[in-house]
């Protein structure tokens, strides 16, 4: 029997507030922890950040002072959850190490979701995106070796390959071509709602992270590379957020958010290898059950609908961090040269795409190419981790 969060009781809200001592979590070991533990932390941070930002937007559009107060109460707890989760990351890690971990999340989270997405249009959106994050991982890994003389393998530990994806320079599309078609809220599979919200939140956090940490670097090539990739994260957030049906009411969206948090904490609790981190997932699941109950009550009261109408009868299979190498390789073999046109995908460099490319590159190689040239100059080759053999795309193999 699956887990139905509507049938479980959580911790009462007035007992969820934590003291400073309780918030003072011990960070994971930067050198010896499970890479997927770090991925789960980064994912849940993105989910909690979205919870907080969504609640703020809701409050700004909400005329009812009682509801505003209710939102504020839950939101404060969500802020504490975000602090407990994100502070699991160690201060010893460099910004670039955390960045590489963010890209590992983007590859293996999006890869897993693409594999399990039931709707073909949504699946295509994830498949399209994952090849871009995959290429970002490759570029940052090369930058990392240049600046810190460390190999990204020490971070991703062979779970994720590091090699070219769709070249970053081709990710700069006309912004209008980043808007997808939304799913239909009346017919969509409940699992698809969760997938869209999860990926949107993860990419939004990546966007926020790069836009803020990029200027901390002193090395000119690092500053430029963060700028370039941060702008692609803007495209990704546009891409994924437009998948969500804008006809969902605020109450419905709130319920979806809380339900998704239950789903993810439950999933991660089931697979967590670090007992201290697992205890946090379990605690937060028990908090989220109560947040979900409150959201459901608000929906019944203000939307005059039963949350069961939009939710699955039980949680879907646990969302799992695991290698997606074969799947990514298949996409590398078949979808490298895709770009978007309107809400669809094409293989040719159409006029609007070409104009955007010319304008943004200004006749020069972009930072994502400069970083490779500088790496080759320093080391004589590219940094790659190809655990499963040669690159499936002939043109993407390293020229010796």
């Amino acid at each position, binding site marked *: 029997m699956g887990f139905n969060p509507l049938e479980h009781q959580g911790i009462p809200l007035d007992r969820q507030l934590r003291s400073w001592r309780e918030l003072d979590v011990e960070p994971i070991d*930067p*050198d010896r922890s499970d890479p997927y533990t770090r991925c789960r932390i980064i994912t849940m941070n993105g989910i909690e950040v979205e919870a907080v930002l969504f609640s703020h937007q809701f409050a700004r559009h909400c005329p009812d002072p009682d509801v505003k107060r209710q939102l504020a109460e839950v939101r404060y707890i969500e802020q504490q959850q975000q602090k407990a989760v994100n502070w699991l990351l160690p*201060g*010893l890690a*460099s910004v670039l190490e955390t960045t590489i971990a963010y890209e590992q999340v983007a590859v293996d989270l999006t890869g897993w979701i693409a594999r399990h997405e039931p709707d073909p249009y949504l699946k295509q959106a994830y498949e399209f995106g994952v090849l871009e994050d995959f290429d970002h991982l490759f570029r940052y890994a090369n930058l990392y070796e*240049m*600046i*810190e*003389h*460390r*190999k990204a393998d*020490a971070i991703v530990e062979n779970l994720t390959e590091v090699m070219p994806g769709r070249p970053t320079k081709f990710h700069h599309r006309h912004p209008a071509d980043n808007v997808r078609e939304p799913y239909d809220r009346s017919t969509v599979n409940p699992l698809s709602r969760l997938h869209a919200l999860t990926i949107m939140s993860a990419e939004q956090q990546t966007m926020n992270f790069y836009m803020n940490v990029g200027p901390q670097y*002193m*090395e*000119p*090539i690092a500053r430029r590379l963060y700028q370039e990739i941060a702008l692609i994260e803007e495209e990704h957030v546009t891409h994924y957020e437009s998948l969500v049906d804008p006809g969902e009411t605020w109450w419905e969206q709130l319920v979806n958010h809380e339900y998704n948090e239950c789903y993810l904490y439950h999933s991660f609790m089931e697979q967590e290898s670090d007992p201290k981190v697992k205890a946090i997932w379990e605690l937060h699941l028990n908090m989220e059950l109560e947040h979900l109950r409150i959201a459901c009550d608000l929906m019944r009261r203000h939307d005059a609908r039963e949350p069961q109408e939009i939710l699955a009868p039980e949680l879907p299979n646990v969302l799992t961090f695991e290698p997606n190498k074969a799947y990514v390789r298949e996409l590398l073999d078949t979808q490298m040269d895709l770009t978007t046109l309107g809400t669809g995908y094409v293989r040719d460099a159409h006029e609007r795409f070409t104009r955007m490319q010319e304008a943004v590159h200004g006749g020069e190689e972009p930072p994502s190419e*400069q970083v490779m040239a*500088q790496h080759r*100059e*320093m080391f004589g080759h590219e940094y790659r981790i190809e655990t499963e053999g040669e690159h499936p795309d002939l043109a993407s193999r390293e020229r010796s």
Partner: protein
Amino acid sequence: MAGIAASDADVVALLMRQHGDIRNLFDEVERTSGDERRAAFRRLVRLLAVHETAEEEIVHPFTRSSVPGGAAVVEARLTEEREAKELLSRLDGMDTDDPKFLPELRALRAEVSAHARAEERYEFIHVRRHADKARLASMATAVRTAEKLAPTHPHPGTESAAKNLAVGPLAALMDRTRDAVRSALGKEG
């Protein structure tokens, strides 16, 4: 274009890469055993000695004299260094296959990593701000001179001789590093 490739002429870039080399050697020591571990550990000890000595002779004096509040910054770094050095000297006399070796090594790694990050965040950032290009380059030259005394990769023939190095020769290595650095700085200045 002042890219990273050109930053061999930047002492901060060079030292940050040495921090990476040190972590790589820790990985190697943890991963190996027997003779291989002994040899990797010797390289780690040499690199740590040379790296720290070079910092003490080259970077810390600059921070002290040219960065506002620099003396306090250096004092904090030296405290970290002393703690790491104590752990290092305890380890240095130990058999690398001793069951107590790895736990001690991990403690050293934690100290060294924290010290390296603290340097990058609280000291190097000021060095780059206050040193002009010529100074960053002359300091880099001195660090490279010292670096030659600590190969990060095994060189045939030298490993067996290095095997027997104990605390005494380590102190001698630090002396030699100091001499090399001073003469390099002298030539530059």
